[in-house]
């Protein structure tokens, strides 16, 4: 697939055209923060944003979604078949989506999630402004090379636009103001990406991401877990805002006929009370310390073992900001462990 450049006017025109014919979700401002929401006009699109309150995951794995409808004995699976365009996905969030793609397609194929993924056209964009807590540079997620249909990089009057799929190629083909990306444009893009690889780093991880599973191997009985557990509300905020968290609960709701209704899945979180409690009342991971440890191990060791080594923390920094008691920051935890027990054997 190719790399072109598109004028900002041309891109706005493309978005306006899309808004006229399909559902377009884009990053917009909400007070002094940013959110993904239905886009009514290209003028509301804010590709200069730093980070969104919630990651774009919510369009694939919705906070609450219907899996099945039932009526008496009959169950019918429900799928979302609406096509949509998602505009403004940052590299770290794209990498998070790529990871969940693997987890939801391998072993047991989750067609509810995967349908939405197939229905989506993703226009990603390189980060133009570092957020308060981003540490993507530390995690190797400041830039992205796959998963999107188009990747935009703002180089001033133009975006460099890389299309990675047929869908992306076709979309760009429809746009006006598209021209060949010259050497200087590519260099401008490379400069931005190289800078992002260094500068999206408000919290600096003291080791390579690939060293984290080894670090955690030795940290299971470290006192930090108990220390953090004392300060944890078990509010699950870190889970709720995380682009790589994908656990869910399943709930049935009936209509007044008491026969028909829906089976829904809703976001769940491993930090919450009751997450591991069985019907008899036994709770397998009861202590807050163990639940915090589980979250960190899941991101830094367990999920990586499932998806071929990639660390399941993409450095978006959302949990850092969402945690009222300031204990969620993975970098702080990792660095403390590095300091106390060191990297290596």
């Amino acid at each position, binding site marked *: 697939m190719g790399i072109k450049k598109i004028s900002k006017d041309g891109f706005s025109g493309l978005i306006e055209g899309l808004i006229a014919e399909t559902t377009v979700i884009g990053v917009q401002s909400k007070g002094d923060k940013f959110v993904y929401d239905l886009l009514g006009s290209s003028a509301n699109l804010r590709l200069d944003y730093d980070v969104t309150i919630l990651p774009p995951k919510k369009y694939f794995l919705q906070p609450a979604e219907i899996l099945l409808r039932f009526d008496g004995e009959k169950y019918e699976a429900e799928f979302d078949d609406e096509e949509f365009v998602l505009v403004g996905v940052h590299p770290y969030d794209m990498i998070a989506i790529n990871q969940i793609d693997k987890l939801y397609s391998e072993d047991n194929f989750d067609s509810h999630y995967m349908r939405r993924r197939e229905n989506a056209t993703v226009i990603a964009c390189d980060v133009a402004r570092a957020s308060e807590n981003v540490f993507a540079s530390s995690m190797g997620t400041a830039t992205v090379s796959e998963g999107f249909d188009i990747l935009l990089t703002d180089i001033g009057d133009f975006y460099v636009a890389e299309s990675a799929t047929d869908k992306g190629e076709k979309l760009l083909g429809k746009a006006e103001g598209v021209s060949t990306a010259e050497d200087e444009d590519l260099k401008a893009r490379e400069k931005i990406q190289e800078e992002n690889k260094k500068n999206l780093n408000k919290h600096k991880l003291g080791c390579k991401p690939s060293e984290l599973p080894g670090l955690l191997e030795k940290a299971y009985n470290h006192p930090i877990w108990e220390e953090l557990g004392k*300060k944890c*509300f078990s509010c699950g905020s870190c889970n709720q805002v995380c682009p790589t968290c994908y656990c869910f609960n399943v709930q049935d709701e009936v209509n007044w006929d008491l026969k028909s209704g829906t089976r829904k899945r809703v976001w769940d*979180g491993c930090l919450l009370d009751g997450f591991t409690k069985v019907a008899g009342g036994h709770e397998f991971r009861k202590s807050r310390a163990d639940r915090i440890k589980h979250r960190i191990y899941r991101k830094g060791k367990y999920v990586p073992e499932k998806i071929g080594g990639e660390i399941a923390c993409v450095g978006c920094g959302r949990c850092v900001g969402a945690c009222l*008691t*300031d204990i969620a920051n993975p970098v702080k935890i990792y660095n403390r462990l590095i300091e106390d027990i060191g990297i290596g054997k």
Partner: protein
Amino acid sequence: MGKPRVAIFDFACCEGCQLQIVNLEEEILDLTGAFDVVEWREAMSEQSDEYDIAIVEGSITRPEDEERVKNIRRRAKILIALGACATIGGINKLKNNFELGEVKEYVYGKDSEKPHLDTAKTKAVGEVVKVDYKVHGCPIDRDEFTYILRCILLGKEPEIPEWPVCVECKAKGNVCVWEYGQVCLGPITRAGCGARCPSSGFRCYGCRGYIDNPNVEAAKEVIEKYNLDIKDLKAKMKLFGSGYEPTKK
């Protein structure tokens, strides 16, 4: 088997939770289709001593109310506490922060010793009789109320969240109101309201009562972080939390 008979009673409260039932609008037809409503002072004139399910709104504030609610309990197979006044004592429990005579005199002045103005310490319904189901909130959430009723019809224990409001608030993509300097009780208050107040820019007032296992140490941590005094937090907790201890496991 006929439809279960339901009677709705009120004690000390603003009756706003009953109003939420009235406000169910067309869904009230589903409700009256599934249940036989035999007494409901706010909405109808009939009365009955024969019922299967008693829905009790309000808190218990007078000795004679204790007798009345015990009587209701004796007649009902199932008793539902409706709204914060009934489930946790609610705002009425503010009274318990003061000496009773002082309260009476403040409210009724020179008439305070008249027998019909007699009052006692406020109790939640569950402090007087056994409560089978609680519909939390001030006011109640209509959807949660009808969900609980359908669960009763199905013979299913309703799944009421044991986690705090933050869970629902974050899922909605709200900005944390602590960031705007508000002392929000979301982290220790039981979810289930859909984070109604924080979603509208208000702090959580704690009307659904505390979660089973609130972390007081963590609350202190936040107070320090925002340079507040623990008194600020305690003052906020008084409105719905007076004399109400979390049901620690």
